[in-house]
């Protein structure tokens, strides 16, 4: 059972079940807990090789026991996400913890990933349960539906879930080359049905300066 102790500390109440969490993110616990490093995020040899090859590396630990365990990472804001059979796409660096029963994997994202400065691959989480993701400043959750497509700055994108198609928009014109661009030359457009998490801060991206 995930709950937020404060906006920056995640508390997980456990009764013998397990959660996967970012390595070293435990700040306190009471009760009986066992911490075990999961090589390759518990995705097996194939998952390990994929992560090594794609650069989407993530060290996870498995926490199992009875009691309450608290997690936090560099005072980042934490957002709870509930996953009901759909798929959450998140950068591995933004993933704090997931329920033990959720499967994690790696997926190709193409040009969109490159524009965020996070590589061409992203981490997926699927199954039924809860996950906790981190953002710089509290994330705003935006719903995308058929009549309301959404456009997001790649530097502010954190995660998305649901049945979404994403496309990459480039507004690069000759004006951009002259230094007279609109400042938002690269954008991600989401269409379909789902949720997008954006943070009130922009990472430095290749696209940030044009």
């Amino acid at each position, binding site marked *: 059972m995930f709950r937020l102790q404060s906006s920056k500390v995640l508390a997980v109440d456990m009764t013998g079940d397990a959660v996967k969490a970012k390595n070293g993110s435990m700040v306190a616990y009471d009760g009986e807990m066992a911490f075990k490093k999961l090589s390759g995020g518990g995705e097996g040899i194939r998952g390990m090789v994929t992560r090594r090859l794609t650069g989407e590396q993530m060290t996870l630990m498995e926490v199992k026991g009875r009691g309450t365990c608290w997690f936090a990472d560099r005072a980042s804001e934490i957002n709870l996400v509930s996953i009901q059979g759909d798929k959450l796409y998140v950068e591995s660096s933004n993933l704090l913890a997931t329920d033990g029963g959720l499967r994690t994997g790696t997926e190709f994202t193409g040009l969109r990933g490159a524009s965020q400065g996070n590589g061409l691959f992203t981490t997926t989480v699927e199954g039924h349960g809860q996950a906790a993701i981190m953002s710089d400043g509290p994330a705003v959750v935006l719903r995308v539906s058929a009549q309301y497509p959404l456009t997001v700055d790649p530097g502010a994108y954190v995660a998305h879930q649901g049945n979404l198609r994403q496309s990459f928009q480039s507004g690069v014109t000759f004006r951009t080359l002259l230094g007279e661009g609109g400042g938002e030359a690269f954008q991600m457009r989401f269409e379909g049905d789902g949720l997008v998490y954006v943070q009130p801060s*922009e990472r430095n991206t290749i696209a940030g300066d044009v």
Partner: protein
Amino acid sequence: MSTYGTPGAGPAVFDPATLPPDDNVNPYTFCVELKGSQWFLQKGKMIAYYGSIDFNGVGHGRLDRLVRTSFHSPLHASDWVVAEGSGKMLLADRAFDVNSYDLEDGNLTIRSGNLLAFQPTLALKQSIVPGFLTLIGTGKFVAASNGPVVFMEPPIRVDPQALVGWADCPSPCHHYDHGYMTGVMGGLRALTGLGGASGEEHQFEFVGAGTVLLQSSETLMAEQATGAVPHQAGVPGGGAHSPQAGQSGAPRLPGQLGDLQRRFGL
């Protein structure tokens, strides 16, 4: 509206119908509603939008008329864009607090890095005080600060790093605690930093009617280049000095650490 106010509750999900028009979504994110209207915004502060919105550099030919009426900082042009279209747009800046302010036939001067966006009914001008911008007219603007903004009434002396801006005060000036810095002991203190230079010997002073805006930390926003002013006699910052030297309008006082303390941000 806060997603973390009630621990354990699911986060609030926003769509175009529930996003507040021209208001804060949370303390760090501001939503602007565009209905065929235009907003000026600093480059790269848009984080997401619904609808169809175009972003054009201020140098875009079609915007000439708009720029002529509400943009009087020609050398800022490359830092500003005009958002135009219809939809809802979210603005944020490095997870700093953002707030909107309404001006009614008023004037407000603000540190150039703190201004995020403004309505074209306001005119943006470069302040005589280097590094600051002045907004004149009627309309709404959005500004960021590190920590919530505090409004103070003059007469007041404020720390230079905490100052965000001021409205209606005609008298921003430097103030030095002269007594503390003079004499043999004062000179020693200032030169060596020993014996308690408090770091608060220099303030900005405001008197008269108006409002002074302070942020609740001394972290500065990254300074936006405010452009250069014509090289003319009598124009602050426009003398024969380099722009850096022109930044300080204050005379060098005996007992000051040269430019050292300013370089270290003291």
